[in-house]
């Protein structure tokens, strides 16, 4: 009886926590990097529009995610970066709700700029899936209770990368998609969200790849496909079976991920290539390809029918998402950008490695409307939820909100 009551209560809590204002994975619920109904501040300072700031116990390039009133972030610490942290804060006031730690079961070596907590976690609204460069996958419920643990490097000893892993997992239906593509053993797996068991495991092209998978929505949930990128092109698979549905040959970039909006897929290949996924037995159709729109590390952002891509030297290029025609270019402060830009309320938010946030007005001309110096390196892709922007450094997590 007691279990039943608690289960019912838990269901009520879960039901109320699943809101449209969530940001449940890398670049948000739909992987677009856009929060449609949100409007975070465009101006803030150390004393204005920073709702709260909390300390973090370790490093991380992983972005925060937001599930209802919970803000979840991962971190890694220790001399070998082999302590894995999952932290949950109250969105309202930044109070630490819970903090769980784990021991890496896989390799934690990475490029000095990266760390074990580089991939952004994901959630299906009931569970949290934390993934690390070690290839550990940790599933917790929203109260931090362990549901299951997988060590992909433990299970597949050559699935690792000496520069570190960065691909963020995504949830597609009841399957967690994890891409772990390397120079040695290179795989992608679909895991049962309830147990962590493999639904499928695909051998992937042998070459390091730091891109994240994306979901392309079908007309029905059963028609959704997951896109995996590699140096050989785009592979669309069924989320539950891993069955290949279609392929598109292209030499995709190894770092920026593809973005999909309104059924069009923008693939970092040959600069940027917009493709229309095939229907039936057709091949994917190339809508346009532009070498002038060339995302280097951050993934492309598609917002208000424009493409935003940060290229080399910190130059952001804006192009017409329908034609690929360049609209403008703007030299951002500094040259090194790792965070993928995010957008809401008619604005595009970009973060330089040194911690400089810059806010651009979305439009047919470049217009910088605000900036802020966090004075700490920021390499994560921020989250936007409920008119708030969440951003983290190696040492802190901020909520930017009025």
């Amino acid at each position, binding site marked *: 009886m007691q279990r039943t009551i*608690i289960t019912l209560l838990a269901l009520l809590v879960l039901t109320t926590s699943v809101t449209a204002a969530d940001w449940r994975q890398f670049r948000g619920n739909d992987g677009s990097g856009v929060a449609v109904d949100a409007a975070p501040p465009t101006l803030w300072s150390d004393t204005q529009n920073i709702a709260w700031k909390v300390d973090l116990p370790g490093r991380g390039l992983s972005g925060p995610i937001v599930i209802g009133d919970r803000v979840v972030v991962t971190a890694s610490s220790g001399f070998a970066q082999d302590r894995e942290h999952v932290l949950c804060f109250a969105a309202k006031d930044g109070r630490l709700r819970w903090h769980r730690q784990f*021991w890496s079961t896989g390799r934690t070596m990475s490029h000095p700029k990266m760390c074990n907590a580089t991939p952004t976690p994901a959630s299906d609204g009931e569970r949290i899936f934390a993934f690390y460069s070690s290839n550990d996958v940790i599933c917790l419920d929203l109260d931090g*209770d362990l549901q299951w*643990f*997988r060590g992909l490097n433990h299970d597949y000893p050559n699935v690792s990368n000496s520069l570190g892993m960065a691909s963020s997992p995504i949830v597609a239906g009841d399957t967690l998609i994890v891409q772990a593509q390397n120079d040695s053993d290179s795989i992608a797996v679909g895991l*049962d969200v309830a147990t962590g*068991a493999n639904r499928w495991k695909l051998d992937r092209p042998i070459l390091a790849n730091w891109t994240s998978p994306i979901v392309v929505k079908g007309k029905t949930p059963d028609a959704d496909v997951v896109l995996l990128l590699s140096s050989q092109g785009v592979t669309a698979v069924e989320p539950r079976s891993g069955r290949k549905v279609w392929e598109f040959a292209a030499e995709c970039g190894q770092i920026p991920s593809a973005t999909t909006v309104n059924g069009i897929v923008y693939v970092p290949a040959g600069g940027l290539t917009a493709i229309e996924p095939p229907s039936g037995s057709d091949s994917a159709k190339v809508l346009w390809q532009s070498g002038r729109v060339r995302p280097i590390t951050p993934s492309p952002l598609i917002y208000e029918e424009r493409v935003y891509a940060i290229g080399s030297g910190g130059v952001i290029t804006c192009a017409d998402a329908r034609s690929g025609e360049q609209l403008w270019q703007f030299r951002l402060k500094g040259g090194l950008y790792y965070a993928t830009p995010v957008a809401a309320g008619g604005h595009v938010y970009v973060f330089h490695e040194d911690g400089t946030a810059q806010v651009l007005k979305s439009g047919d001309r470049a217009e910088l409307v605000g900036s802020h110096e966090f004075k700490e390196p920021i390499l994560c892709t921020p989250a936007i939820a409920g008119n708030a922007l969440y951003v983290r450094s190696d040492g802190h997590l901020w909520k930017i909100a009025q």
Partner: protein
Amino acid sequence: MWWRTAWMAVVACSMFGQSSEGVSAADVASNLKTIKSVGAEAKGNAAASRAWAELAKADAKSLPDILVALDDASPLAANWIRSAVETIADRELNAKRPLPIVDLEKYLAETSHDPRGRRLAFELLTRVDPKTADRLLPGMLNDPSVEIRRDAVARLLKQANELFDADKTDDAKPVYQQALTAARDDDQVQAAVKRLSELGQAVDLPRHFGFIQDWSLIGPFDNTGKAGFNVVFPPENNDDLTAEFKGKDQKVRWTKTFTTDNYGIVDLAKVQAPHKGAITYARAEFMSDKARDVDFRLGTPNSWKLWVNSELAFSREEYHRGMALDQYRVRGRLKAGKNVILLKVCQNEQTEEWAQRWQFQLRVCDATGTAILSTTRPVAEKKDVTSR
């Protein structure tokens, strides 16, 4: 109606509170057994998940027993157990209930227990009373837990730095030496070595870390198109050091080399030549006074295969993704007497400036990183080893 259900649930929670439910010792043992059965590819995860939920209800008194279960837990199971300990401790501390401090400290004091479990106990104890660290760390300089050891060394380095800054260099020197002897993490080693050097004391870093310096080399063999990685060249099955084999361009023979690099790096591009599309084998003999499990810790930006006494220990095909101390940790076993370590080091044909390195470093140590030396290793020479 939902509100009635919610109200009943609230009442139930208030009745049962956040307190533990008095899970019996037998249930704790049974749940731990289930959790310890987890294996690769999620084997046993579903049952472990149910067992974990029950285990996490155990009261604080169970914590030492749960920690003991880490002693023979796999790396996967260890994380399930760790998480249960953390969840129980959080619940109890948030409810202002005590942890079994005396029993946790007894568990910590017993160094035969799992090092990571002991570190977890240490963190629980210091969370309850931060002064515990100052009380315990001075006696934990050689602890089997690398994290506890690191804290103890950090404390000692701080003490040495204070003496150094106060110009009490005669007092600082032995403290730095003590810290160095205990240090296993390279940042702490370097911090101690830097100051000892300034105080005129030489340190034998290869010996401290256990790098093998004395190697026999043979190559180059052909790795054009990276095709040689899986080719069985003669050194893989012929241990005759006087033999001559067909190499990539000409016949090749074994040669001796001794690296004086502080971090044991053998730079094949210099010792031999900057060959491209090439493979060289490095062979070392290691005398052990007893059979024992060890770590073979390798750093190389090249693809490699490692054999110990003719058994393949591990192999990895990855080129130019960086090189670092302890980049790869391969668990293996030495037999008593002579052991032969054979390393295949493969260079590809990339032309970029950053892809020219063809080198390796290999050390033998225990799980804490403490050097294990060949019994025939020469006595350390006095030398200045302050620069890499």
